[in-house]
């Protein structure tokens, strides 16, 4: 993450010397960001097996409360962070985008696991969305299948770093004309309409997967199914008992 460091111009050495004497120097921004990053409230929802790891992270052994993110909220209005934990099916995607739209600013998103990043093992399926970042911006991509609780904590720490380095005046939700709500996709005859939102996400021009693995191939010998004459009489009345 190429983040510009948001540091005060007071010398660090002087600061620590002063701290020993009981004088604390800080900037308003630092204080504000410290408060924000130490009380990230995630939205309470899980989609698949990654949710189990998220639950484990919230429990006593890994204890997400050490990072101030233990308050899983049941309402998007009270949440700061959306952890997309699990496979996003096409049927679920509109609801996720709607929940994101309903969250109050400032809002952040962690995609947890291979499925919510890019479809994961279901990438060739008809039913799974190939990454939630097609419809809404994502702050931290957290790979793994599923990521261990430590990985989720690491992702949270990355997010805390990002929050720490934000300047309040320059954050995107205070800028004029920036979009922070995104259209909710609809169900179409072949899948979701639209397939992605080009303002947020665009497909790679060269397919990395194809260049590396080539086109999909079905291996093995095809065995014909045995022939049978029991198709029944097409003129017979069916459904009689």
């Amino acid at each position: 993450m190429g983040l510009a460091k948001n540091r005060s111009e007071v010398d660090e050495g002087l600061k620590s010397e002063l701290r020993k004497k009981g004088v604390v120097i800080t900037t308003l921004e630092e204080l504000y960001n410290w408060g924000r990053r130490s009380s990230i409230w995630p939205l309470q929802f899980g989609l698949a097996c990654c949710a189990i790891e998220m639950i484990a992270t919230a429990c006593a052994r890994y204890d997400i409360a050490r990072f101030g993110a233990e308050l899983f909220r049941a309402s998007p209005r009270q949440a700061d962070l959306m952890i997309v934990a699990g496979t996003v099916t096409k049927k679920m995607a509109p609801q996720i985008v709607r929940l994101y739209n309903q969250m109050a600013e400032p809002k952040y998103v962690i995609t947890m696991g291979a499925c919510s990043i890019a479809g994961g093992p279901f990438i060739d399926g008809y039913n799974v969305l190939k990454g939630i970042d097609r419809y809404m911006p994502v702050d931290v991509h957290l790979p793994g299948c599923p990521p261990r609780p430590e990985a989720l904590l690491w992702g949270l720490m990355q997010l805390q770093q990002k929050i720490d380095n934000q300047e309040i005046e320059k954050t995107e939700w205070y800028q004029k004309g920036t979009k922070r709500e995104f259209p909710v996709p609809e169900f179409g005859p072949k899948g979701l309409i639209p397939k992605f939102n080009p303002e947020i996400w665009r497909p790679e021009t060269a397919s990395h997967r194809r260049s590396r693995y080539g086109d999909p191939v079905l291996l093995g010998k095809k065995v014909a199914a045995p022939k049978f004459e029991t198709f029944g009489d097409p003129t017979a009345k069916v459904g009689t008992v």
Partner: protein
Amino acid sequence: MNPTEVKSKLEAQFPGISIQIVNNGLVLKPEDLVRVAKFLKESEEFKLNYLSLITAVDYLEFLESVYHLYSMDKRTGPLILKVRVPRERATIPSLVPVFRGAEFQEREAYDMMGISYEDHPDLRRIFMWEGFEGYPLRKDYIPEDADVLEWEDVEWLERHDVKVPEEYKEFARQLKAAGKEARAVKPTEKEI
């Protein structure tokens, strides 16, 4: 439960019925399914009163619906019934009048494989939404190419004030003019 015994008993019960045994399953004609299931459920000898599973298989030449019957009273099972129908005329009588639990499983088989069950009380899609076209678990179904915007996507995005890049728009226009759909690459078959 020996399928050969069941077969001979069914043949004694319904003279003229045609039954074949395939992999421990009894392959029936579609028109015989309901009366056979009803007999197996109600007869004192079998009491196969629990329908545990209905699933569908695509064999390319035909579609097959598979039923697993258990007996809760006698602790026997499964007895496997199979019904085969041609792809273009995939109609099988529904088992809902005999087993109420067949309802959702038949809806699932209809949704994924496109087998329509006659006399089903409420035959709708169960997993996919209304308006979805095609039956996604059939072997000839090819999913959409999710990385290419089609013209309806472009129209939708512009309706929602999203700026679509010119090259995507042009490509979608070309696709529409050629009357093509953006589908995923079909896997090529290779023998090893």
